[in-house]
């Protein structure tokens, strides 16, 4: 199979998955108790009024008609309108996407920056104190629920010591950068500082599990690679140990790490729901929680479809990179 055909096949699979997500999300409202009309109608609405509401929302149509209408509108980029505010669902969801992506990217950077060195140190100093410290950290990191961690960080670093704000997002990175360019270093540095202060705690909270996971993965990968015969050969050849570790062993370790990184980035986008809620971070997660609380189905659907599609796209990109790095994947 050529690389192009491989990508096409993966792309088509991705489309099927997105369609599956859309369908399941659409059907969710019909398997949850109560009708969408109950979420919109006043409690004391007359039966006639309920019928009118159902008609206005198109809920009086047979299920398959509603489903096909929804699919058709979705294909045209129309995700419907919020039942509560009347704002276009796509506008509402896509305007929140940058905040969530920013959080996911920053937490990934923190995670990668910490986990790979930790994993390498842990593997190369096996059974030494540094290894024990790194493995303990990763065990704790994997076991800690992020909502609890978030609340603890707020209590300690925000409420107790006042180092970071408890919640919110003062500036987006792009906005802070624009201020730096347009208004000079003074206001720019201040905006950047505010951005950093606000994003640090949510990013650390979101990235902790991820850091722990990659640390463990890097450690076990490195240990495996360092035991391989090619490593013995490179050492026999007289290469310096740092070259053996970082140029050869680590490079091979990173292939599975990249796969997990990609998968986890998708999880970060969806999994930020609780972290966003704890930190009142104005992203997709907060939008999703609000939509669930209000039974705002169009927003709920749009958010889940965007998160699901994001997951699929990230996976697709990872597959493409992975196949590029390891041609055997395409051949298989």
């Amino acid at each position, binding site marked *: 199979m050529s690389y192009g055909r491989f990508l096409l096949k993966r792309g088509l699979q991705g489309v099927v998955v997105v369609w599956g997500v859309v369908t399941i999300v659409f059907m969710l409202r019909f398997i949850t108790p109560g009708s969408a009309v109950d979420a919109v*109608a006043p409690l004391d609405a007359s039966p006639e009024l309920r019928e009118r509401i159902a008609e206005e929302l198109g809920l009086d149509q047979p299920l398959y008609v509603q489903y096909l209408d929804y699919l058709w509108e979705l294909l045209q980029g129309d995700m419907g309108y919020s039942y509560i505010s009347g704002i276009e669902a796509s506008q509402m969801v896509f*305007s929140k996407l940058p905040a969530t992506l920013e959080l996911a990217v920053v937490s990934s950077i923190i995670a990668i920056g910490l986990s790979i060195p930790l994993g390498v140190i842990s593997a190369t100093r096996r059974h030494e104190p540094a290894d024990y410290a790194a493995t303990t950290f990763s065990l704790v990191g994997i076991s800690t629920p992020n909502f609890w961690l978030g609340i603890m960080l707020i209590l300690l670093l925000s409420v107790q010591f006042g180092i970071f704000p408890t919640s919110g997002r003062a500036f987006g990175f792009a906005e802070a950068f624009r201020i730096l360019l347009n208004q000079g270093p003074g206001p720019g540095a201040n905006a950047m500082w505010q951005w950093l202060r606000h994003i640090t705690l949510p990013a650390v909270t979101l990235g902790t599990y991820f850091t722990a996971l990659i640390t463990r993965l890097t450690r076990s990968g490195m240990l495996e690679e360092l035991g391989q015969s090619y490593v013995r050969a490179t050492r026999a050849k007289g290469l310096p140990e740092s070259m053996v570790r970082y140029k050869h062993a680590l490079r091979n370790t990173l292939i599975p790490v990249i796969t997990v990184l990609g998968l986890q980035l998708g999880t970060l986008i969806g999994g930020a729901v609780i972290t966003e*809620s704890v930190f009142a971070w104005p992203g997709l997660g907060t939008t999703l929680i609000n939509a669930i609380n209000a039974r705002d189905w169009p927003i709920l659907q749009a958010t889940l479809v965007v998160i699901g599609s994001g997951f699929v796209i990230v996976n697709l990109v990872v597959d493409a990179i992975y196949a590029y790095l390891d041609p055997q994947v395409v051949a298989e």
Partner: protein
Amino acid sequence: MSDKDSADVSRRKFLGFAGAATATAVAGCGGGGGTETGTDEPGGGTDEPTDEPTEPGETATERPEPETRDGYLQRANRVAHEQAPWVFLNRQYSVYGKSDDIEWQARADEFIDAYAITPANDDGDDVVINQSQMDSGLDPQDHRATPTDNIVMQAYEKLLDRDREGGILESLADDYSRQENGRVRFHIRDGVSFHSGDNLTPEDVAYSINRIVDPEVGIASPQQDQLAGVTGAEVVDGERAVDVMSSGLNPIVFSLFASYGPIMNKSWVQSNEGSYINQNMDGTGPFVLETYEQGVEVVFNRNDNYWKEAAEISTLTMRASSESSTRVNSLLSEESDIIVNVPPQEVSRVEQNDSSSIAAAPSTRVIFNAMRYDVEPFDSAEFRQAVNYAIDLESIVENVLSTFGDQTGQPTLDGYFGYNGDLDPYPYDPDQAETLVEESGYGGVEVELHTPVGRYLNDVQIAQAVAGYLDDLENVTASVNQRDFQALASEVTDGDIETSPHWYLLGWGNTTFDASQTLIPLLTSDGNLTSWSNEEFDRLVSEAQSLPSEE
């Protein structure tokens, strides 16, 4: 929103159906408060004539006929108390956290009136309010939610207003009177200007009212049903006044305009697109919009050209955190000055902190257990009374609600027009309850209380306590069935009493501060949510609705 946004409008027409009281019942929203004019002691006193003492055992039907609307509503409340169609539970409180940098008191109608905030020190000059949700757009006539009201009504004003307890005040109207059945007149205050500099005119007022009640004028406003019965408004020739027309008498019309109906600048609205109106403001209120970031933050500056004295605080910032612990932490770290909905388990953290305290006020919401009059054992008034006697309401309020609730003994809340001040909550008397159960002939019966989960403050715990007390009686077995709110609501609200559970917990918010908006939908035979049918009660409510409130 302009006519041009036709797609938006058609999608949103349904929002116009939302009923006035319901938003509060469903979402815990607030509105206004107060009684009609002419009632110095709202709801107080007996259901008239007042010279007749109540004899033990004397029923409402044996009393002389009332003479006023207030009297009829009070009498209807007495019938409800005696016949006990509900287990009368409690009136919930709105509980806020407040920074010591400011002085402020919570209102009954849940509106956070930033104009009433006074700085207690220099830090109190710039106030941050942290709610559970942000706005759904800034058009004051295009939403139906308390968090949005708390934002937009800092910049917009109504014809009438409410004081903290709910009494009616004059606002943009400096006089108002009933001209005839179905027509009332508001005299429009002179010397008021919008933030854009335009002067307030009667044309602005008439246009604003028509924009709400008439879908042909601008938008299909979701507030149409808040001005229940109002059909339109017109400028009075040669006077600085506006006439508001209603279908029928509309006894609570002034009460409606004290709670609802924000006034907008006609020319500003007409010359701007809907999306612009939803992101900008041109009101007459004490605060002027500075910046708006949808879903994130709204910042106001004090209006120095306000028609009353300018507000005491300089800036007002509205933010939101859906997590209650996040709001509490923001208060404790002095990032917020007022936070909404502090849950009971967080109250001590706020109170123990050096720089914050709790501010609470009775809300407009009553929590009750409806008992269907048409099914066993609840078809027996003795049995329904027995359930009321079986419950230690005082203990529930103290232990389940941490005292942030008031016991109730009638459907109408204290302070409302039509409240009967003579009726006390049923006392806790399990012996009397067991006797009444035997008298009803339903000894040994099993009953199940349906309750929503997480819809109202500690709803499940309240239901469990109620069922527990009833189960403690020797001749009744009671249990709780925890339900999804939407599923429960769809059974109760489908217009068919036979699909409703036999016994269920519900909350009802009534922001008009008038008994009729609770009694009619929930307890009259034709009410959309009714669980009861009683001819005498129906007659009393019907008589009340044929009389004006203000006499």
